């Protein structure tokens, strides 16, 4: 029996199981890591979806609260007002009651402001994006004395998430144009082409530098739009320059 041969074979016989074990441990942990990453990704996606869904739930809850809270306050106000009639002679009592009524009204008003900020306009929910935008542009024209034109020859309803995202984005873009652009006219156009929904918001204001928007110290409005778009796989494009009106184009796959 060749001793060298035995030594070599013996070494191999020991090295094989050791390397098999090491290999196994490495492969095991790599696979585990991959699996965990996939798991986290799925969880993240699910949480994102859930947060959008839960926003809706919260919205409905707020609607209920609004009804109960504000309703109660307004009932109290009405009672307080009807009591005013009884004390038409008693001056001091009258002032007291009037003061309390005003307090109640103020509180109701305050609550309405607070809660309604989080609420989606019911037009969007009930009649869809197109009606809501029509409504929005009309109301804004009234409030601001600035013509806001809405053009659209579609008649369709879209995914609730898409509608909400587009509505909020339009609000922010119009708000921006009113705040920053010193425009004389704002145009909103909604159209469909190539299986994509296209929303365009244009103003004839003074324009701005896109670089300036990307500064971290600036507002969150446009970033907000972008994050909304990433949720519904949409896209926000700018056509802006200092000295001329700005155009924002949002496209969402249908």
């Amino acid at each position, binding site marked *: *029996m060749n*001793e060298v041969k*035995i030594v070599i*074979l*013996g070494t191999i*016989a*020991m090295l*094989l*199981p*050791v390397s*098999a*074990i090491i290999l*196994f*441990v490495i*492969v*095991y*942990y790599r*696979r*585990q890591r991959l*699996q965990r990453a996939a798991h986290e990704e799925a969880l993240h996606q699910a949480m994102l979806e859930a947060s959008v869904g839960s926003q809706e739930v919260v919205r409905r809850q707020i609607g209920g609260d609004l009804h109960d809270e504000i309703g109660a306050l307004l009932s109290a106000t009405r009672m307080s007002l009807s009591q005013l009639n009884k004390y038409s002679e008693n001056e001091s009592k009258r002032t007291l009651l009037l003061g309390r009524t005003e307090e109640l009204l103020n509180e109701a008003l305050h609550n309405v402001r607070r809660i309604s900020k989080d609420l989606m306009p019911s037009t969007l929910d009930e009649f869809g994006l197109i009606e809501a935008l029509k409504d929005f542009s009309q109301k804004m024209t009234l409030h601001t004395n600035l013509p806001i034109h809405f053009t659209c020859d579609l008649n369709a309803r879209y995914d609730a998430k898409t509608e909400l995202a587009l509505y909020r984005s339009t609000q922010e873009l119009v708000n921006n144009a009113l705040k920053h652009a010193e425009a004389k006219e704002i145009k909103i156009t909604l159209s469909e082409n190539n299986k994509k929904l296209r929303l365009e918001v244009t103003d004839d204001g003074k324009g701005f530098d896109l670089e300036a928007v990307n500064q971290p110290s600036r507002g969150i409005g446009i970033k907000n739009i972008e994050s909304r778009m990433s949720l519904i796989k949409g896209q926000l494009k700018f056509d802006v320059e200092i000295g001329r009106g700005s155009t924002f184009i949002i496209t969402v796959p249908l």
Partner: protein
Amino acid sequence: MTFPDILAYVSSLGVFFPLIIAIIRRENFTLELKLMFVYIIVSTLTEIIATFWARYLHSPNHFMLNIFSVVECLLLVLMYREVFINKLVKRITLITISVFTFFAIFNFTETSNFVKFNSLINSIACIIIIICVFIYFFQLLQTLTVQKLSVTPMFWISVACLLYFSGTLFLFLYGETVLFHKSPFFKELWVIYFILSFIFRIFLAIGLWFSKTPLQLKSSSKSAQS
């Protein structure tokens, strides 16, 4: 006393490590670890009896090793059968172990095969156990059920088995040439065997130390609630 003799002593003492741990932790044992417990008891007894046999009766104890290797293979394969998930694999292990046992008994009917060290039976036993370890590893990779390998009893037991049985397989394949040769070189090879079996027992002990039953988990969570 020569160096290999000392090692032989130490490695025989090593038998007591897993035994002690097993006695301490026996309440936690699931079925596969209970089989491991039985295996440890059997191997300890065999070790003790074989040592005394050789020392005081001055007669060869090889027949004991032959029987032990069959029992060892039986217990370890049954242990792995417990952890295998796949029904087909379970059935195949059962068939394999039955065939092996019958073959061994048949083989032992020839007296020379029984009283001398039987390298054929020992080698087959090693190969069967190594295959079981590989199936177990493959199953782990497929299911990824274990969070941390380092605190999993069956992982340590499998590492122990893989190292020990592939090492001894090598020794057994050369059979009597290696094990009972008189030249000093082959005496050195025994050193490897003692080291291997010492590592084997330490790893078994580590594995048993990490045993935990659902029962224990339940009671600890109950105490956390109250």
